[in-house]
């Protein structure tokens, strides 16, 4: 429950809390609709929520409604390949050329950084001169993708030759919420 609180608050953000209050007032709250959709919840949970709905109003009401919505999406995750693929990051990415992604360094060999960004292959970038000490195994970096796989046809060949590597430009360290890169 705490996790849901944190997640909804983060996604809501401070200014939009007023939004929720207005939305709850505008949209008619019909408990019947909500209860029938929640057939997969156990009885204890349902009875608890029913009793709560009578007493809550405003933000509390909206919060319980929207927290239920997030629960529903996690329960309905299908095991059908076509649907999984359709909602995957690869399809969302589209044409890899020029896309900014975040990667993680899994190996450092001399001046070369081997970075895994979640694609089929890793990419190899040279360590930049600025912030050299920050580029170690496990650091998160930002990349601009050029290719997901380096494979081209050479003159006279019938098949392409693959390098088993991706191509990306190293933009710098990834900025996390806590710290700032110098």
């Amino acid at each position, binding site marked *: 429950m705490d996790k849901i609180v944190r997640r909804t608050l983060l996604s809501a953000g401070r200014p939009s809390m007023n939004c929720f209050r207005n939305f709850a007032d505008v949209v008619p709250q019909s408990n019947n609709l909500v209860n029938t959709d929640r057939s997969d919840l156990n009885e204890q949970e349902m009875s608890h929520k029913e009793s709560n709905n009578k007493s809550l109003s405003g933000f509390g009401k909206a919060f319980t409604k929207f927290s239920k919505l997030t629960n529903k999406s996690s329960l309905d995750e299908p095991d059908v*390949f*076509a649907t999984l693929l359709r909602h995957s990051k690869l399809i969302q990415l589209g044409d890899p050329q020029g896309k900014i992604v975040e990667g993680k360094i899994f190996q450092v060999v001399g001046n070369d950084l081997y970075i895994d960004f979640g694609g089929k*292959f890793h990419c190899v970038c040279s360590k930049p001169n600025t912030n050299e000490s920050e580029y170690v195994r496990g650091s998160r970096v930002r990349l601009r993708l050029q290719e997901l796989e380096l*494979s081209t046809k050479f003159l006279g060949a019938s*098949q392409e030759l*693959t390098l088993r590597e991706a191509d990306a430009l190293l933009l710098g360290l990834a900025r996390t919420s806590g710290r700032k890169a110098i």
Partner: protein
Amino acid sequence: MIRTITNRFSWKFGRCLTQTCSITSDTSHCQNATALKVNQPTELKESELKEITNPLRFPDYFGVRNLFRLKDLFDAKVHYGHKDGTLHPNMKPYIFGSRLGHIIFDLDKTTELLQDALNFTAHIAYKGGIILFVSHYPQHTLTVENAAKEAGEYAHAREWDFHLLTNSEKIYKGVTRLPDLIIMVSTLNPQMQEHTAVRDAAKMCIPTIGIVDSNSNPNLITYPVPGNDDSPTAVQLYCNLFRDAILLGKSKKSEIPSS
């Protein structure tokens, strides 16, 4: 180099190298014998023999279907293939499609074929067969060797010596027992050509299981499993699954009352 291979094949795991005939022919002979015994019982003996079941009568005796789900394959990036330009024509039946030039495998087909492969592995392990993990992808050498070690089986994840299977008696200077199953985690060598083990295993009538990527040829492989063979997550998943299947087979072996 050859010494390390002999270590892996024989002394370390205390297996004796005396038989020349492969175990597949041996087991078929044994099965016929037990079948004859079961078919000619008296009423008293039938009740005693009820406990001994023939694992081959069941579609999934070891429960290998429960080892993984389609979502696990998806999360491990098994459906990622190479590009359109490197696609082998024999891999076309296993392809879901291509996304902006990148091949995507049909994981529904992959799950079926992977289940068959794992089932076969478990049966071979149950019968006490020698299983050899083969891979020549330097990035995954450690993963493959560790999986073999944990399974109590053998691995050859280095440069393949072409005498290994076809000329073994000359190389090891004595009668040798060849592996009963070869699991190829990658069917290509670093020169992007078909690994010699595929051809040699077919010559020596050794069944093979091979993870075939979109640029590999599944022709000579007994149980091809179409999937990604380049990503470390995918390879780790395959190694874990095959190791678990082998251990399942071996655990059932210890459950037999008389063996």
